[in-house]
């Protein structure tokens, strides 16, 4: 029971802080992958835009 995970930092056990860090990391990675996917798709659409497109011709 008296393992390192029950050492308290800032009033909370270490495992609470590690859990928070892991959650924030997982969420950040998921959002980053999603944003990268969106930007790749946007680049792909821009690269395949027809030459006679009115917006592309400007």
């Amino acid at each position, binding site marked *: 029971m008296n393992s390192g995970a029950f050492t308290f930092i800032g009033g909370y056990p270490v495992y609470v802080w590690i859990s928070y860090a892991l959650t924030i990391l997982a969420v950040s990675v998921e959002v980053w992958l999603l944003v990268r*996917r969106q930007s790749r798709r946007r680049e792909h*659409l821009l690269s395949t835009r027809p030459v006679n497109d009115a917006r592309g011709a400007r």
Partner: protein
Amino acid sequence: MGMLLYVLLAFYAAVGWIFNARVSGMMASSLSITGAMFTSLSLITGSLWGRPTWGTWWVWDARTTSTLLLLFLYIGFISLQSAIDDPRRADRAGAVVAVVGVVNVPIIYFSVQWWNTLHQGATLRIANGSRIAAPMLAPLLVMIAAGWLYSIAVVLVRLRCLIREREPIGAVAEGAQ
């Protein structure tokens, strides 16, 4: 989160399968990544909690084992969809896994009641009052709300990506105008 997202995934996969609705299949795909992420997090952080509380990182307890099975179902669903090139066939194949796997969700939920396990019983109860200290209940409810809002936002953004990727470019452009 992982359990409820899986129920939603199975629902959308079944609707896509039965009614041949393309967006439902895409919705199921979109839900799978977030659900797998939350299930992984619950297993890892639960293990971190289990070490000081139970004295071990992992036990083959009914709740933990059925939750691990849920993660495998998510991984199986994602892998199957990735392995098939045709998105419509991938959706149908994924729907079979999703619908069969949904049986696991009530097993996870009731496992602590059906079997005498190391895992504690239900903490949040609507009918008989919650068995959790008030200072812990409030942040837990805030985090549940945050988890749901995050899931809704991420799943909808991913769904938009999927629609744009799968539908012809002309059709998307016409729809946007």
